[in-house]
């Protein structure tokens, strides 16, 4: 346990070294310095995992904020949930660090990149280790910062910078909700410690309406996990280097929202209407993401939207209070989505930064490893048994089936879409003949070992990840469920699934049929998506993401800009300041009037004196003279 504090500390050190020595340090050393910390952290977490006695532990590190009755310590909490998150973060993190050594080798900002990655890992670990909502909030905002830094990593391009700012600001909107939630918690419980709060909730001594708190916290989750309406930043976030997309915008950060909800399940369980809301938001997001994903031609954009929709699934699971299922999906998704991104990265690397699948094709011969791993990833995400994705998604669907059939059926549609567009991308990228330029053609090559190795490892997990929570019918023992049980309410776990029933069959069909369709359309027919110009009708609207960005621009960005100028030029200068200046002007004017009295003529002066005397005498004597 004593080594626990090393887990976040090491990445921080890596960040410090790489960050301070950035321009000078040679790349190889920087790469190693950057990769060691997550690796060691992973080892430590593993050791933590292996000899964990099932007892949640609080480790106070130091006092942080201490004002009056309010005490917010730096404290870490070790329990089943955080340990698993540790493993995912450090594990996937390590792989992606390794991958980045190869991927970023040509980049000038190599050292800086690793510094940022380490910083991200640090904050992510703080997020999951924190023993109270405020420490969680540190990580919460910290990962936001890192995603900002990494999205805008190639900072010469203004569009990238805009994407980065968009991400940060949208997260901030969510964070405000989260902060309000924290304030409410403090108001009610006088603290933000998990244990105090949850025990209080369980024992039922609270005064305020918990659902408001839960709702505020969920707003934070919306921002962080890119749910409607705060999801538009995630696709833009693909501006960052691909490893970043894999680590931050697929595997870890975006799942923070789910982590938080699971962490606070005691709270959410007691506010069912919020849970309901969560479920529907998740569903809407899942469908929207999947729909948009159908027609995207940028390989990373497709993956981004699929991430959005997968996150939607996780929230749906939470909505059905199938916490285990959601968390299961978090983990498997971490594997296969990271895999897919890294594969895409490897493709992009080979295509010398070409991302449009219409320019690709026939890569399977040129880069076999990437091809195979990517295929496995695709199958996994499509939910085809017995791959990881199948089990996790199936659990969510199963729980939905019992929770709310309407949701369930819509979710099935979503998963059908998913499987379609994933295979579309897969086929268009690796089959058919090459559609790129000559230059790209003879530049094509398989990626170096540093990149392929992580692909292979992740591929293994994507295939076998299902074992973590293998259901009984598949001969498993639902390890995850048992592991997490102490933290979770006794939820009606999905019973035995009968593959011949609707409940069991529909998901399978939804996985297989679209896949075949995609293979037919793009594989056999060799049809290629049309150029942007030719896109039209409903497809065009979807292709342009339902014009949601434009909508937000019109609703928020433009009005605020206008307001800003209006306040500045109108209110400040024409109203307030004019009044202030006006006073001065008035005095000047009065003065120029007053001075006229000074005519320089003695006669008038004397007259004024006499008049004044008369007035004085009259006023002060009228009482005595006049009766």
């Amino acid at each position, binding site marked *: 346990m004593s080594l626990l504090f090393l887990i976040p500390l090491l990445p921080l050190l890596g960040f410090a070294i790489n*960050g301070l020595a*950035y*321009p000078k340090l040679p790349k190889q050393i920087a790469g190693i310095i950057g990769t060691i910390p997550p690796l060691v952290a992973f080892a430590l977490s593993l050791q933590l995992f292996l000899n964990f006695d099932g007892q949640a532990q609080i480790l106070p590190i130091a*006092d*942080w*904020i*201490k*004002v*009056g009755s*309010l005490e917010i310590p730096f404290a870490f909490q070790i329990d089943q949930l955080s340990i698993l998150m540790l493993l995912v973060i450090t594990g996937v993190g390590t792989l992606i660090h390794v991958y980045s050594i190869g991927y970023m080798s040509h980049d000038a900002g190599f050292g800086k990149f690793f510094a940022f990655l380490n910083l991200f890992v640090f904050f992510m670990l703080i997020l999951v280790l924190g023993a109270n909502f*405020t420490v969680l*909030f*540190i990580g*919460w*905002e*910290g990962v936001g*910062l890192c995603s*900002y830094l990494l999205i*805008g990593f190639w*900072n*010469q*391009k*203004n569009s990238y*910078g*805009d994407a980065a*700012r968009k991400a*940060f*600001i949208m997260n*901030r*909107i969510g*964070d*405000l909700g989260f*902060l*309000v939630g924290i*304030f409410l918690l*403090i*108001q009610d419980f006088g603290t933000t410690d998990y244990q105090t709060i949850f025990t209080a909730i369980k024992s039922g001594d609270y005064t305020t309406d918990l659902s408001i708190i839960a709702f505020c916290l969920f707003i934070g989750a919306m921002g962080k996990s890119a749910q409607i309406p705060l999801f538009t930043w995630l696709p833009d976030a693909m501006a960052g280097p691909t490893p970043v997309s894999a680590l931050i915008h697929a595997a870890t950060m975006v799942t923070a929202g789910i982590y938080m909800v699971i962490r606070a399940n005691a709270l959410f369980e007691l506010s069912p209407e919020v849970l309901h809301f969560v479920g529907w938001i998740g569903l809407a997001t899942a469908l929207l993401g999947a729909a948009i994903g159908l027609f995207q031609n940028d390989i990373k954009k497709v993956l981004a939207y699929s991430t959005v929709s997968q996150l939607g699934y996780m929230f749906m699971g939470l909505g059905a209070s199938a916490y285990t299922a959601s968390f299961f999906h978090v983990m498997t998704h971490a594997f296969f989505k990271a895999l897919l991104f890294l594969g895409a990265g490897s493709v992009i690397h080979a295509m010398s930064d070409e991302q449009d699948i219409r320019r690709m094709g026939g890569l399977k011969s040129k880069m076999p490893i990437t091809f195979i791993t990517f295929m496995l990833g695709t199958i996994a995400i499509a939910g085809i048994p017995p791959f990881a994705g199948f089990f996790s998604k199936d659990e969510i669907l199963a729980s939905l089936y019992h929770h709310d059939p309407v949701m369930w059926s819509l979710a099935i549609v979503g998963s059908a879409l998913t499987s379609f567009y994933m295979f579309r991308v897969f086929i268009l990228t690796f089959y058919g003949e090459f559609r790129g330029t000559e230059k790209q053609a003879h530049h094509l090559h398989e990626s170096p070992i540093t990149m392929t190795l992580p692909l292979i490892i992740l591929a293994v997990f994507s295939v076998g990840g299902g074992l973590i929570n293998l259901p009984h019918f598949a001969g498993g023992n639902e390890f995850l469920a048992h592991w997490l049980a102490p933290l979770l309410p006794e939820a009606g776990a999905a019973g035995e699934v009968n593959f011949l029933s609707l409940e069991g069959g529909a998901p399978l069909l939804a996985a297989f049929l679209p896949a075949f369709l995609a293979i037919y359309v793009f594989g056999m027919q060799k049809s290629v998506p049309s150029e942007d110009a030719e896109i039209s009708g409903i497809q065009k609207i979807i292709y342009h993401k339902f014009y949601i960005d434009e909508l937000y621009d019109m609703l928020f960005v433009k009005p*605020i*800009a206008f*307001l*800003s*100028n209006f*306040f*500045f030029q109108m*209110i*400040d200068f024409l109203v*307030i*300041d004019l009044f*202030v*200046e006006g006073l*001065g002007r008035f005095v000047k004017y009065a003065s120029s009037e007053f001075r006229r009295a000074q005519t320089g003529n003695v006669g008038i002066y004397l007259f004024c004196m006499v008049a004044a005397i008369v007035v004085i005498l009259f006023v002060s004597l009228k009482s005595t003279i006049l009766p």
Partner: protein
Amino acid sequence: MYLLFILLFPLLIGSALLIFKPKNAFVLSLAASIIELAATAFVLQQASSNPVSFSAPWLASEGLYFSLYVDGISGVLIGLCALLVPFIIATTANTDRANNSQFQGLMLAMQTALMGAFLAKDAFLFYFFFEASLLPIYFLAAIYGGENKNAITFKFFVYTLFGSLFFLIALVYVYLLTPGPFHSADIEVLYQTAKGLSADQQGYLFAAFFLAFAIKMPVFPFHTWQPDTYTVAPAQGTMLLSGIMLKMGTYGVIRFVLPMFPLGVATWGLTASVLSVIGIIYGSIIAIQQKDAKRLLAYSSFAHVGLMSAGILSGSIEGIQGALYQMLSHGINIIGLFFVIEIIERRTKSREIAQLGGITQFSYPLTVTFVILSLGSVALPLTNGFIGEFLLLKSVFDQNVTLGIIAGITIILGAVYTLRLIQKSMFGNVSRITSDFADLTFAEKAVLIPLSVLVILGGVFPSTVLGFSEPAVQQLIQWFK
């Protein structure tokens, strides 16, 4: 006795500089300010155990005493003042102002005035320094300022003076109610006396006091002097104004308004905090579209101070503690940011955000420090800004949910304008005027790097300061709870 030293020492050196005009003014003033810092640190170390005080008859026939003291509250502020001035002086290194003995002398004189205001235990002594501090800063701004400086600095002078005159008469009013034959203006006596006043008396007095401080801070709608003045003043003047001087306003509210007029706060406090919150949003929104970087920072400072005053007016311990901490953080962050702009202006001769860009390619250290300072000012956790804003927002939220949420929007808008500033200046394509941007000199690093470190330390170890001020604040709250 130490207090007398830390009060008068800068003035001593400053006037020496003004009179004898030595060649190496920079070294002298920097040394002086550092000695001052050391002495202050010593005093604070003493004050951490129990308040240090000094008193001598000043105008005994009127019951006015030259009495100074350092408790948890004033300690934070003299600490701030003593800490920032060396940095501010250091920012003049290698410029034509470095050995300009007049400039340096005025800055040191300013430090004495500020120290005095924070140290004063006698209300009139406070007023005395409160006003006196206007003179050096006025001359700094009006001699070394930018275009149209006369009108702007003059407006600033008259405006603030006008406000503080109301403070003066209100003060005289309370002072004359203190037990005679020799009245007293000792803060505690004033607390006692003011408690006895009727609600509407307190209302008027609250208005008069708050007006003065509101203009100083400034609070909406008394702010129109501020952006102009910040923009036109020389960088160091702006740092003094925004880093330390506006804290006299917030300090005044904590020290006088809250404990003296609880009933007044009860009646008018909400109105005042609404104004402050309006200021937060108003300032942030204006900052979003600013073209001049300095003016943008001016408005951001306006927004931040609005949150402070709202938090203070909530009267809760979190509010006051948060305000104290935020004064410290804001001082550090804002002078750092102003210095960054100053550096850019020195090299490119321009503050037009639109004309800048790509600076990070020429100066990595500048970018890093700038980003850290900005993060501090957008209150990212583990930076000093977060502690203050967290406590302040909480206090406002506890006082009034709606206000709290509206005030909370600042964390969004703050990110909007700050990130815009970073993006347009540091990142993006290199522009014509940034194409030959020179990296930071040693002196510039020597200012920016320590400040950035302070930003982080402040975010990680707030308890040192909070613990220092806690007892005094508790005591203060006893006066009006």
